[in-house]
């Protein structure tokens, strides 16, 4: 199917189903119940899951396959965001031109930075990319203010030309982003008993783009080009003496991953037309590294899982506070309740970074292959116990278990 082997086609199907039904899957708890705060099925967060999924899928093509660890990929996401907002200012609020231009601009930008940074490898490469990204951040923040909006960020205004659209709507407000008239903020809410599910147009646009991006990534992984990228990681000397030039392969991977980052940036501003320099900050570059490693560098689904997990923690775990903890442990004797709350408190709310850090350490030490390796190990245990699992069912079952957040 679609030029994929059976296993990859299964994986793609599973991801398609999960993204399609995410509004249900991410909202398992009834509205108003004490567990409702764990629901992640609201548009803003679901959009973020898939957008950062795209960012991580692209990053993995560079890092997972070639082993080149870039610490500056947020620069391309930022460049894509600015380009997208400019398209909305100058041309139209339709998201298609914005997304295309984001990808193109990020691609050109990554070609330039990649060309220079790839003169070195290993730690020097990482530092060069970090330096370039920080430089971009600093420039966007100061000198380039006319283009980037500096500290306030780049916003739409009522005076924008918008040649193919309108500068302002009839009631004097800024028009909203749309796809041929379908507004990105449009949502359809469905109440089923105590449950409330939200189906958001913007989310489904992002999800569709993510599925295409994921499909392209699978194709790249299974292509001769993908094999060459793994050869770059494995032994560049051997490549050279086998008549292959590793440089253009690595640069191509760098640009492709830069374009994925631009795509993510373009989608971000398509959902919320505002771009700020902080998107290029080094912590943003570090985050995508964490996502990829946490999920499993070099695996297909890993980066998406990592992105989902980190965004879930950032948005959900960070909101738990001590009042909520006290509610949870209320059934216990007072002394023990207080003790438990005191023990758990550092790991939730603002302390979610601590939990993430510990998880990251545990994964790197015990599961170098990330969550995907964890899933595979569980899968193997499972298969050993009941030997019924056939070759195709087992990995699919594995994927199902591994994708709670996506």
């Amino acid at each position, binding site marked *: 199917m679609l030029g994929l082997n059976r296993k990859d086609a299964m994986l793609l199907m599973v991801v398609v189903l999960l993204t399609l039904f995410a509004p249900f899957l991410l909202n398992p708890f009834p509205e108003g119940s004490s567990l409702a705060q764990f629901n992640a099925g609201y548009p803003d967060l679901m959009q973020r899951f898939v957008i950062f999924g795209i960012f991580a899928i692209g990053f993995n093509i560079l890092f997972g396959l070639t082993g080149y660890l870039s610490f500056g990929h947020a620069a391309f996401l930022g460049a894509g965001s600015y380009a997208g907002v400019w398209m909305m200012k100058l041309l139209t609020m339709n998201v298609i031109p914005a997304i295309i231009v984001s990808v193109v601009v990020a691609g050109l930008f990554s070609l330039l930075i990649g060309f220079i940074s790839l003169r070195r490898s290993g730690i020097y490469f990482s530092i060069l990319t970090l330096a370039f990204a920080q430089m971009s951040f600093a420039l966007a923040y100061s000198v380039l203010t006319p283009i980037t909006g500096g500290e306030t960020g780049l916003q739409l205004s009522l005076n924008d030309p918008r040649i193919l659209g309108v500068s302002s709507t009839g009631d004097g407000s800024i028009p909203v982003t749309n796809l041929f008239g379908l507004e990105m903020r449009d949502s359809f809410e469905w109440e089923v008993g105590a449950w409330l599910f939200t189906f958001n147009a913007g989310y489904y646009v992002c999800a569709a783009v993510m599925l295409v991006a994921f499909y392209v990534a699978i194709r790249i992984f299974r292509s001769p080009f993908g094999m060459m990228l793994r050869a770059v990681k494995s032994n560049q000397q051997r490549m050279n*003496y086998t008549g292959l030039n590793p440089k253009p392969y690595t640069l191509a991977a760098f640009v492709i991953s830069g374009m994925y980052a631009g795509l993510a940036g373009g989608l971000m501003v398509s959902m919320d037309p505002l771009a700020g320099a902080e998107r290029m900050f080094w912590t943003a570059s570090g985050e995508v590294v964490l996502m990829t490693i946490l999920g499993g560098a070099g695996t297909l689904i890993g980066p998406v899982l990592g992105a989902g997990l980190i965004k879930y923690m950032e948005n959900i775990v960070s909101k738990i506070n001590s009042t909520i903890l006290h509610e949870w442990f209320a059934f216990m004797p007072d002394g023990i309740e207080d003790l438990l709350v005191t023990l758990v408190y550092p790991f939730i709310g603002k302390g979610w970074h601590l939990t993430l850090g510990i998880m990251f350490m545990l994964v790197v030490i015990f599961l170098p292959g990330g969550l995907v390796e964890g899933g595979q190990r569980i899968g193997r245990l499972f298969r050993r116990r009941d030997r019924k699992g056939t070759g195709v069912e087992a990995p699919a079952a594995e994927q199902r278990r591994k994708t709670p957040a996506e």
Partner: protein
Amino acid sequence: MGILEVKNVSKRFGGLQALGDVNLSVAENTVHAIIGPNGAGKSTLLNCLIGKLIPDTGSVMFDGNSVLGRKPYEINQMGISRVFQTPEIFADLTVFENVMIPCFATRDGAFRMHALESVANEPDIVEQAETMLADVNMLDKRNVHAGSLSRGDKRRLEMAMCLSQQPKLLLLDEPTAGMARADTNNTIDLLKEIKDKRDITMCIIEHDMHVVFSLAERITVLAQGTPLVEETPENIKGHPKVREAYLGEAQV
């Protein structure tokens, strides 16, 4: 004129003259062995042929073209493949992928953006790689990670990788070191078979005289960076200069 012409090549590492004025001519479609004691400069000479090192002086002509100043991948694309003394393989990839990569390199050149094609959709390459693996008796190990192979298997794999490129000139740096006797004999048979099947020139460095005398048509003896003699195998046995080279200067 041989297919490979090395003229007045010398190479110095700091105070050490690794190669001093080496002249070597390898005739087309022959097997030429280079022997000599450890540290004689044999591997260094090969390094100068494939662009790993640039000689201080002299010239290296292959098939009428100079190789000096060319990048290693360009030299390989001219038709020179090399099996290294310590196996150079793609350790993280499977055995089968290891053989497919050189097949792609030979067919598609130094770079091709085949990002949306599928490896599974390349029947020619797959078949070529399978045949090559069958030739070195490694078809049963096709899905094994190359890094986990035994040393002897790594060498056989590397040889398969080089042979799959159908090079005009194959350089072999101690191809049977670390191999069991049976595998050594298989390797000799394989190389003979390849030689019979198509036009190929081989340059082989070997300490194992059994291998040398089974394959070589010409033998060059290298000692302390200079060629002492170049002879046929019959004439090399018992040659006084060869003994001298192997027994060392202490005798002189």
